């Protein structure tokens, strides 16, 4: 990650210097800083709300049932040896919110899950196989009903805003399958 980030900065700055627009660098950093802060400030309320609601949910017994259901269905993706019950519960809350499509809630639950997986891995500096598979699942869009896309399509006068739902399932299926195969192969090698 650190390498990718440094490379992005170095390339941008070198290009700006050669293209003769060095002033864009500082302007761009200023703009990005403003944008990032505004985004985070506007997210705080929702993130905290979901964090609160799911803190209630994780103290109930329903989470145990949901967790069992998930271990039966997608448990085969993960290595059960280093997987604590807490990790399982957080992961299944994250996946549920991903499927329902509550972005902020799945971020909150995803962070809890990865922290717990990190603990299962004895806080090793190198992420475990479970962690890489879990993050990969989060980079795929598991959302069942792409509501924001449907809304945008009808806003722009589409004749059938929901026509994209099934193709999206097919595409997500293919990309998820490739992603999982890729991460499994990489996990074996590195």
């Amino acid at each position, binding site marked *: 990650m650190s390498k990718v980030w440094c490379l992005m900065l170095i390339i941008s700055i070198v290009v700006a210097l050669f293209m003769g627009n060095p002033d864009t660098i500082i302007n761009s950093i200023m703009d990005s800083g403003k944008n990032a802060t505004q985004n985070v400030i506007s997210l705080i309320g929702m993130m905290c709300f979901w964090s609160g609601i799911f803190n209630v949910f994780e103290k109930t017994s329903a989470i145990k049932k949901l967790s069992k259901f998930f271990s039966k269905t997608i448990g085969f993706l993960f290595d059960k040896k280093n997987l604590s019950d807490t990790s399982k519960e957080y992961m299944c809350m994250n996946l549920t919110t991903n499927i329902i499509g509550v972005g902020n809630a799945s971020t909150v639950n995803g962070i809890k899950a990865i922290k717990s997986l990190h603990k299962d891995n004895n806080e090793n500096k190198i992420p475990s196989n479970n962690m890489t598979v879990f993050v*990969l699942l989060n980079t795929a869009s598991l959302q069942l009903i792409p509501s924001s896309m449907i809304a945008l399509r009808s806003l722009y006068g589409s004749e059938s805003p929901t026509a994209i739902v099934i193709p999206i399932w097919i595409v997500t299926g293919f990309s998820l399958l490739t992603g999982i195969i890729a991460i499994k192969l990489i996990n074996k090698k590195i």
Partner: protein
Amino acid sequence: MLNYIIMCIVPIMILTIIIIATKEKKDIFKLFIEGVLDGLKTVYNIFPYILAITISIGLLKSTGALNILLYPLKPILLKLGIPEDIIPLCIMRPLSGGASMSVVMDIFNTSGPDSVSGKMASIIMGATETTLYTITILFGAIKLKKIRGVLIAGLIADFVAVVTSIILVNLKII
């Protein structure tokens, strides 16, 4: 009707959580407040990562470095049958949600949501996530620098998503 059902999902989820917790006689208010405090700490901890990623992507775009880097990719993508107006979307999608959304709106504006590009854009947008951002936040939360192959696997998955969307639309399935 479908829209109404979609709108009901999240409120019903909240209601269910509260009902279950009430049944099990939990102190809901106290748990909620604790959770909010936790959420606040999380936001505080991930802010540096969000700032870092926003700055680096902003720089790549505004200095024109992104265009230069992608210049050699364009002919390849065109050969694969990807319409030209979709290319910026394919590139922005893993990097930035906001920027790719504005590309989609642009396509909807010029060619309409039911055009070939419009359909492709809708499917790509709905079937993928902001890969780089998600990885930064999740690994940032535990302050890990080594991410092994996640980024590569994620980008491969995104690429497959783009290709399948284009195939589906070209086959006139939708």
